[in-house]
């Protein structure tokens, strides 16, 4: 933490504390009456215990990790593209994951028997989708050296468009039962999360975090411009590879498990910058923490506001994210 000053350290520690409190709260509230205190101290009924450990706990854990993933990925991409409006959706990774998942939902049962009932195949096809996009992006921008970023953005636009067409076609040819799967998934939700499903995913996410945080300093230097960064000894190609791949992994996994949830990757890094500063050694961990806090809270509201019914969590992140996004644009225009 050599590039992080003491005020920034304070923010990070406070965030960790707040996250723990928020986790405790999220574990204690929901449609069903069982709290964290109950879990620790009282005898719970069989249903209460089931709800707490098998339903609520995996869900809260997943929302925290997805929030952290989307926020960190957003921070990395805003750094890599030197664009404050960059977002995981921008380079087409979310779209690739979406296309992979949609393809599986609509076509999967034709090719693999019994696939509709296997809960692992959907996340897997989603990750294949984002992995395919990553590879495509990598090959498209490979020859371009330092101008690669512009081509990357263009490629991202192309991927988004292609994915939109693909999903449109698949939606068109899907029958009613398949459509059910699609609509649920595009609204974004943490419902149905189980430990066995999210366990391996979380490992991948943690690995990617560790990988990308080591590159934080290089992202700082990249802000001087690609030529300058190169002259300061940064291997731009390697940096681009690290950021893209780790972002793609964490976004691909998040999208496959919880559907499309917008604005977090865009908005949280700016919040973190306002709180403590712009250097990436601070920005990446603090974005992860703040992203986790906000997502856990958003999901808490999603499942308690109209209980016993539930709102799609993407609705809440958009409702808070869009006004913030507008404010952000005004702020950038002023300066």
């Amino acid at each position, binding site marked *: 933490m050599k590039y992080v000053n003491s005020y920034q350290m304070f923010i990070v520690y406070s965030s960790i504390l707040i996250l723990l409190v928020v986790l405790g709260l999220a574990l204690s509230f929901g449609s069903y009456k069982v709290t964290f205190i109950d879990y620790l101290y009282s005898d719970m009924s069989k249903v209460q215990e089931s709800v707490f450990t098998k339903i609520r706990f995996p869900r809260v854990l997943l929302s925290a990790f997805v929030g952290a993933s989307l926020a960190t990925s957003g921070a990395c991409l805003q750094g890599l593209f030197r664009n404050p409006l960059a977002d995981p959706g921008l380079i087409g990774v979310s779209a690739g994951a979406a296309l992979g998942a949609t393809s599986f939902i609509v076509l999967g049962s034709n090719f693999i028997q019994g696939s509709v009932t296997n809960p692992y195949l959907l996340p897997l096809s989603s990750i294949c989708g984002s992995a395919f996009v990553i590879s495509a992006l990598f090959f498209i921008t490979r020859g371009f050296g330092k101008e690669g970023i512009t081509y990357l953005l263009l490629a991202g636009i192309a991927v988004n468009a292609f994915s939109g067409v693909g999903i449109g076609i698949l939606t068109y040819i899907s029958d009613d039962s398949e459509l059910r799967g699609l609509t649920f998934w595009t609204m974004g939700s943490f419902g149905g999360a189980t430990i066995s499903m999210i366990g391996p995913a979380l490992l991948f996410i943690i690995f990617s975090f560790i990988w990308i945080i080591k590159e934080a300093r290089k992202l700082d230097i990249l802000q001087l411009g690609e030529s300058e960064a190169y002259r300061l000894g940064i291997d731009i190609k390697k940096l681009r590879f690290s950021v893209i791949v780790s972002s793609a992994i964490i976004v691909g996994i998040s999208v496959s498990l919880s559907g499309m949830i917008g604005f977090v990757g865009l908005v949280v890094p700016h919040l973190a910058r306002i709180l403590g500063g712009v250097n990436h050694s601070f920005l990446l961990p603090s974005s992860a923490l703040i992203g986790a806090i906000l997502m856990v809270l958003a999901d808490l509201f999603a499942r308690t506001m109209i209980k*016993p019914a539930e709102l799609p969590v993407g609705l809440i992140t958009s409702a808070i994210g869009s006004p913030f996004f507008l404010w952000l644009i005004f702020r950038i225009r002023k300066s």
Partner: protein
Amino acid sequence: MYYRILMLHLFLFVNSLLAEISVLSICNIANNTSDIVVAGGSITEILYFLNEEDRILGIDVTSNFPKQTSELPSIGYVRSLSTEGILSLNPKLILGENDMGPPLVLDQIREVGVDLRIIPEEQTAMGIIDKISCVASIIGIQDKAQEEIKDKLMPKVKYLKTFQDNKIFKRKRVMLILSMQGTSPIVAGSGTSGDGFIKMTGAINVFESFEGWKPVSEEAIIDSDPDYFIIPSRDMHKGSDVKSLTSNPIFKNTKAGSKENFIFEDSMAMLGFGPRTIITALKVAKEMYQQD
């Protein structure tokens, strides 16, 4: 030889038994037949039809009939339910239509140990009767249910059958429009609830050639030249709906459109495939054929 006939009968019997078992086991009586959460409008309708609504703890948003349902707690949309939400009502039995979901939520509920039954649905008049019988069996009131069915529904079902089997007068050709997507109406193809309803009224679906709910072009609509447009609508603002459709150039150019042959009915009453669907199908069939 008698032995062989006996074996054959036995074989056939066992076969049909096995086929029935999958359905039968769903409709087996539940251990606890009150404290029910319902996900699916037609099942709620059925419970009210059988006067068993006191058993209901909570319903989904598609359960909007009769009016009293608005007083019950809502568990949300049938396709995106919440595990905790449902469990917080402490149900002992959950009855759902076959589009209840998402699947992971259903798995979680089963894992906690709550009795969850997806009622099989066949989109025909007898399918509705079977649905009612299934629900009745689950809550243990078959006899009472058979009475109600015999009294109130079977006469209508038989009447409908005469429209369906009719070989005397020309069948009506219809299309069923769900909504407008941009400027293209979404119509019912084969295999949809809309198609099922059309067949119940004894009419022919002009768009039987494709599957599912799909948008169709203006040309296709004019070319298909239906006798009637059947439109499930959420609010019954008949007057304004007819006006907006007749002035719509897509419909103006059809024979049915110029004659204002639009039939509006409540969407759940039409496509829910609960008791009301039988009543509505009969009403629509009569309306179409009595104009001859």
